[in-house]
């Protein structure tokens, strides 16, 4: 009992700190923290939704047995829409990203930013934010909701529909994730641009979804549920995690190397901020945490099949994603490394909130998608 109360306790304790941070008056820092953590949770939900669609699209059979976990995790989306709306209401009145006076002034006064001024006009910005959330919520309703309904109806037509829907969903997902990363992460700086940035954001989102799925499965297994997921399935998930760990490093390094090599002042300043002063150690730690450690940890077959060690790597991946978002957002406040009680409070609150919501989601519907006509093949999946 004590263990299940822990996330709620964390959230409660963190909430006090978050309220304190609000009254401490540092609204830019408050917003930055809010979005670091809400985008982390959003990454988990979106990554899970992507896994579901990817498995439908490729008609993968091995993953049907564990599909309910990412389906449930993508159910965090409605709650996150609320979290994002609160953040937008609290933080966008002139202290975060594109809405700060400095950003507005740069757009208004620098002729080469004229195109961006249109992109960042308030109605367009809010309009597309609403649009991408609508896309995600609708897709979640169709894919996860439809799958749960299939448990009752056993209608095989849903599987066909899910496959067909997943194809256009990939387009919508690519566009919406690019909008999310460009608006909320790259859009912290009025002048910086990187055409690979959307892919960078996607790699983190997919990794977060995979890591959360692994943790969800192992959590259920610990409770004696979902015993149908065997080391063979875990191995395949671990392989995914390994592949996209390398993918993240590839994208992150490509972005860095091209900017470093071309050495154009309009691009390099973004990395210069992060390679000087207190940010240098953070930039140094990031690839170690996100690439080197998980890479070597996941090399071995035993780790990918072992629940305890795989869950450690999954936690590491999520910590890496949190640090990545912190590294993307906070340096743009131009105030050096901000780490104090406010950051701890936000960490506690959102970790607790995410865990409690995920825990609650884990009891929605049945543990196995019993209506899927290919479930049997998945149960007998061998490497």
């Amino acid at each position: 009992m004590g263990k299940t109360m822990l996330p709620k306790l964390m959230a409660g304790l963190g909430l006090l700190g978050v309220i304190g941070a609000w009254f401490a008056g540092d609204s830019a820092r408050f917003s930055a923290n809010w979005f670091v953590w809400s985008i982390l949770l959003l990454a988990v939900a979106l990554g899970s939704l992507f896994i579901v669609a990817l498995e439908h699209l490729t008609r993968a059979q091995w993953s049907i047995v564990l599909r309910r976990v990412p389906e449930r995790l993508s159910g965090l989306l409605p709650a996150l829409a609320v979290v994002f709306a609160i953040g937008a209401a609290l933080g966008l009145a002139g202290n975060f990203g594109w809405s700060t006076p400095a950003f507005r002034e740069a757009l208004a006064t620098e002729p080469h930013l004229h195109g961006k001024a249109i992109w960042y006009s308030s109605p367009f910005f809010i309009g597309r934010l609403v649009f991408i959330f609508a896309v995600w919520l609708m897709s979640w309703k169709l894919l996860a909701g439809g799958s749960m309904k299939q448990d009752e109806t056993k209608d095989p037509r849903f599987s066909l529909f899910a496959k067909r829907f997943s194809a256009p969903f990939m387009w919508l997902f690519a566009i919406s994730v690019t909008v999310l990363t460009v608006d909320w992460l790259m859009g912290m700086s009025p002048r910086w641009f990187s055409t690979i940035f959307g892919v960078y954001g996607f790699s983190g989102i997919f990794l977060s979804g995979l890591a959360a799925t692994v943790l969800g499965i192992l959590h259920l297994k610990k409770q004696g549920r979902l015993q149908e997921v065997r080391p063979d399935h875990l191995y395949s998930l671990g392989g995914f995690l390994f592949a996209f760990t390398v993918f993240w490093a590839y994208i992150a390094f490509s972005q860095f190397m091209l900017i470093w090599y071309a050495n154009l002042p309009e691009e390099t300043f973004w990395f210069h901020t992060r390679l000087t002063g207190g940010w240098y150690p953070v930039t140094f730690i990031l690839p170690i945490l996100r690439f080197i450690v998980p890479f070597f940890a996941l090399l071995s077959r035993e780790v990918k099949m072992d629940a305890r060690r795989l869950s450690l790597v999954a936690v590491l991946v999520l910590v890496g994603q949190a640090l990545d978002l912190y590294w993307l957002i906070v340096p743009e406040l131009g105030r050096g490394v901000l780490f104090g009680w406010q950051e701890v409070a936000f960490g506690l609150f959102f970790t607790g909130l995410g865990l409690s919501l995920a825990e609650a989601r884990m009891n929605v519907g049945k543990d196995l998608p019993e209506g899927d006509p290919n479930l049997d093949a998945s149960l007998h999946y061998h490497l």
Partner: protein
Amino acid sequence: MSDRPFLVLGLFQDADKLVHGIRALKSTYGDKLEAYTPYPIHGIEKELGIPKSHVGKIVLALGLSGLTLALGFQSWVFTTDYQIQFGGKPYFSWASFVPIVFEVTVLLACIVGAVFGMLVLVNKLPHYSHPILSSRSMPKITRDRFALAVSVDTAEDAARAEAALRQAGAPETEVVHGTDEIGSGPLLPLKPVLATVIICVLAGLGTWHLQRLWNKLPLISIMDEQTKVLPFRANAFYPDGQSMRPLVPGTVSRSAEYAAWTTPEEAGQMLVNPLSADSLTLAKGRRGYETHCLVCHGQLGDGTKLLSDKYTGAPANLHQARLKEAPDGHLFAVVTAGKNTMAGYGKDIPAADRWAIVHYVRVLQRALDASDADVQAAQAVAAAAPVAQGGSH
């Protein structure tokens, strides 16, 4: 070819039946069992009790050595062996090393580690043949049958193994004769070797003919045909038809030196040596002197030339009283514009270096007939600051 029974094969219809067969025979035959299947079956090595392959470790070790090798080699080349500036980057630019480090790591790990590791450890390389390859069952095994093989030595063994395999559920069995000792077969697998030779000859002849054909084809000259201005070429873009533009009247070269003097005497009146005679300047002056002046004026500046006697010019002795008394500007003007048969060095040596050379000539003049006081002063300076002898290297 030895004719003793070597293997007994039992052919099963599917992988599950094969696994049941393995479990049935495991206790009797242990490590004499081996399985041959049309596709890899995960987990079968555990059933057979085959220990984990070392290929993974070899791949990791070679991958890490590839990483170290590529990183180390590039670091050595670019920082020590052959320093080249690329785009103003530091010599040790690790980011530019990464693509090659990545390539070499993958190359060593995959090709050397995995492929050669597989050839030796899995395919047991010095053995290039195995009796099973010439068995009747081989075509079936590569199609849709799952074979369980038992190693045997004698005919009685073979009979017993056949019975055991049938009992374990194999409808078909075959006794394979032969041995897998190295050298038991032909020395080289003739057909593949012959095929390789023929392919090489064909490829060589083909390339030879093609390159004769290529000579008759137009060159790929996209790079040459760019719409840009090339120096010393006709260019229809400009009214005068020339690609190079004449200088705007009144243009002054940024590197040109403005000289108000016309004779060394005048220069001696007008110019003052802008450099102070510190150790760095003197070192620079010495280098300049030894590079440009020494061949004619000699190591000590006394006019004993190093050139052969066939060169009949008489270089000036720099220690003559006239030159000792001449002001710095005078010497500078001679170095710049030349005198008698001596050519001017104004175009070859930057002005600052010429002034440094003048300082060094002064050093030579004073050093050749130094007084005791000069020697004591020099010793005192040397004792106080040994580094100040920077001019000597």
